[in-house]
C-alpha cells in the first residue's frame, strides 16, 4: 500500500529583531522541537516588512508567510508593529485579488519571553498552510 507523502510547505517568517526574533531564540533555549518549515528573515522592525517582500516570497516559491511583531504597545520603535498591522490588512486584500488565500499570510505577536508561543504559532502556521496545500500561482 502506498502512503501518501505529507506536504511540507515552505514558509517565510519575517521576525523583528527585538521581540519575535528574541522569542525564537528563547524557544531555542528551551530546546523543544517545532516544524522546520519556516525560514527566518530577520528585520529590525516588523514595520520594515514591505508588502513586496511578501509578494516576492510567494512568487519565489513560498507557500506561506508569517510576520511576527512585538505586542501592541511594546514595539522597540514605538509603533512599527502598528504599521505592520495596517500593511497586513492591505496585503490581505491584495492577496485575495491575486487568488491567494489570506490564511497563507499570518501576522502575530511574540514577545522576547514567549518561546512557547513562538513554537505554537509556528506549529499552527505550518498546519494551516499544509492544509491549504501547495500554492499554485496563475502564472505556473
Amino acid at each position: 500500500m502506498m502512503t501518501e507523502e505529507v506536504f511540507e510547505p515552505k514558509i517565510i517568517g519575517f521576525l523583528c529583531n527585538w521581540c519575535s526574533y528574541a522569542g525564537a531564540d528563547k524557544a531555542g533555549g528551551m530546546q523543544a522541537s517545532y516544524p522546520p518549515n519556516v525560514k527566518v528573515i530577520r528585520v529590525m522592525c516588523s514595520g520594515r516588512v514591505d508588502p513586496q517582500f511578501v509578494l516576492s516570497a510567494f512568487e519565489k516559491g513560498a507557500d506561506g508567510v508569517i510576520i511576527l511583531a512585538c505586542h501592541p504597545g511594546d514595539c522597540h520603535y514605538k509603533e512599527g508593529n502598528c504599521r505592520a498591522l495596517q500593511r497586513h490588512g492591505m496585503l490581505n486584500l491584495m492577496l485575495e485579488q491575486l487568488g491567494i488565500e489570506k490564511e497563507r499570510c499570518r501576522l502575530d505577536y511574540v514577545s522576547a519571553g514567549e518561546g512557547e508561543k513562538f513554537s505554537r504559532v509556528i506549529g499552527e502556521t505550518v498546519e494551516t498552510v499544509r492544509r491549504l496545500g501547495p500554492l499554485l500561482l496563475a502564472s505556473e
Partner: protein
Amino acid sequence: MKIGIYFCNCGSNIAEKISSSTVAEAAGSFPEQPYVKNVDFICSEEGKLQFEGSLKSEQPDRVVVAACSPRDHEATFRRCLTNAGMNPYLMQIVNIREQIAWVTEDPAVATEKAIAAIRGAVCRVRLQQPLEKKQLEVCPDALVIGAGPAGMKAALSLAEAGRSVVLVERTPFIGGLPVRFEDLFPALECAPCMLEPLMGELLHGEHPGKIELITMAELMEVTGFYGNFIAKIRCRPRHVSLHECIGCGECIEACPATTMNEFNSNASERKAIDFAFTGVLPNAPFLMENVCVRSHGVECRACKDACPMGEDVVNLEEAEMVVERTIGSIIIATGAGLYDASRVAGLGMGTLPDVYDAMQFERMLSSTGPTGGEILTAAGNSPSSVAIIHCVGSLDEDHKPYCSGICCQYAFKFNHLISSKLPDVSITHYYRELVMPGKEAHTLLRHAAANEKSTLKRYAAISDLAVTCADGGTLQVCAQGENSAADMVILCPAVVPAEGGDALSALLDVSCDQFGFFRELHGRTDAAQSVIKGIYLAGACQEPMDIRSAMLEGMGAVGHTLAGLQPGRTIEIEPITAEVDENHCAGCRLCLSVCPYHAITFNTEQNSSHVNAILCHGCGTCVAACPAGAITGHHFTNEQIMAEIEGVLQ
C-alpha cells in the same frame, strides 16, 4: 567575489544536529563557490584568533558566520572583522544554533534547513555594502527646563562636572513646589532648610559661572538636534535687576497697588511689586505689570524712588526679551501640580468655606504663608475637628485612574502637624486605598494610628462622600450615610502634570501619555530618556513622585547627558539608518508621518524628504512605506532582503 563561510560547531551544540561536511559539500555547489572553514568555538578567545587569522590570510570580500544568534555575538564578530582589516558590515550571521540545531529533531532535516539559511545569507551578503560610522562635533552644554528639585539637582550636578547649564524657570523663584512647604514627609524635615543649601549652591556656589538661571522664562522654539540644539527662550520682564537687588523690600513698602497672591493660593494679599513669598530665592521682588497702577495710566515710580541701591535696580520700562542659546541636550523637569478638586462633585471645593486642597493647606502650615503657620478657619478660629479626604480624583475612572502615590504620605504628615499644633483636634481620614511605600513612610501611619484623636475610615467610591454646610453652620462630612461634623476639610487631589506641558510637548516633539505626563523612551529600561534623542526627563513631569525620586531622576538625566556628550569628543552615528534618494523622492511626505522619531524633514525647495541620521533609529518603517522606493534602509536594503528570501527558498 570571494565569500568565506565560517561554521561554528559550538562544541556539540551545533555539530550534533548539523553536519558540517554536508553543509560544506552543499556550499561547494553555490554559484559563488564560497570556501567553508570549521571552527570549534568561534566566540572563544582561541576561536576569535583563528577566525581573524583566517580572514587575514584568505582575504574574503564577504563573510558568513553560521553560529549562534546574532543577538549574542554579532558585535563580537564585527570586531573580529575590524581587527582583520575588513569593514564589519560585510558579514551576515546565520543563527543555526537557537533557531535550527536546538529546535529540530532530525539531524538530516536540521542540516537541510541550515543549508537553506546559509544559502540565503550568501545571497544577501554579496549585496552588503561597507558602512562607516559618522562622527559629529557636539556642544556638551545643557538646557534644564524647570528649577524644582529635579531640575536644580540636574543643573548643579552638570555644573560640578564642568558643563555650562542654562536653567530656565517659569516662576520668579527656584525650588519648585516643595519650597512652598514647611515640613516634608516622611521625616518632617524642614523644607526650606533642606532646599536652601541646594538653592544657595546654585545661586552663589562654587560653580556660579556655569549655571545661567533665567527666571520668569519659557522655551519658545527649539531647532536642531541631539548635540546641537538652538533654543529660543522668552523672558518676561521682572522689572528688578537680579544682580543688583539686595532684597531689602523698600520698594514693596512704597507700592500703592495690591492684589491676591497666587503663590499663597490667593489666601493673602501682595503688592504689585513684591516677593512671591517671604524667603524666596532669588531674593528679589518682581513687578506684576497688570497690577501696577502704571498699567492704568497713572504716572507712578514709587518703587524706583524707594530703592536704596540706585536708579538702575528697578527698571519700569523693561520689556520682554528673547535670548538664544546653543546646547547639546535638554532636560525637561517641569514638575507637577494638583488636579482641580472642584471638578470632583460634592466635596465643596471652591464653593464652601474651609474646604482646602493640599496645596492651600501646605501654605497655611507654612510660616511664610497667609496665616504665618497658624491653622485657622476662614472665621479666624482654631478648628476642633478636621477631615482629610484622600484619593480625590485619584484611582477614579471618572477623573484620574492612577494612584498618585504621594498623597497618603502628606495626608498623614498633615495629621502629625495638626496634632502637634492643636493637640485637641480630632482628625478623620477618609481614604479609598492606603498607599505608604518605602522604608520610612510607615512611621507617619503608625503615628496617626496611635493618635487617639484620629480615625481612619475607608470609602468605596468618592461619590459615597459629600461635604455639606447647612445655613452657615459647621461643615458636615457625610460618608456612606453617616454624618460627621468638621470645622475644616482638606482634600488630597490627584497629582497631575504642571501647566504648560502640552505646549512644551508640541514645541519639542516629545509626546505625552494619556494623562499628559511626558512619555519615556521605555518605562523601565529608559525612563529618564524621552522619545527624542538628547531630550531627557526628570522628576514629576513624567509621573507623580516625591522629592527623593525627583532628585534621583534628575541625576539619571544628568547621567545620560554626561555619558552622551563629552567635551572634545564627537558622537558616533550608527550607519544602519535610512537615507532618501532626493532624485527619486516624489514629495508625498508619507515617510514623515510614519517615522516614530521625527527624524525626517521635508525640504520644500528640493521637494524632497531628508532623514537626519542622528535621530534615525534604523527601524526601516519609512523604507517600507515609501511608494517611490526612494528610501534606502542601509544594511537592510530591499535588494538584500529580497536576495535572502530568494536564497532560502531555492
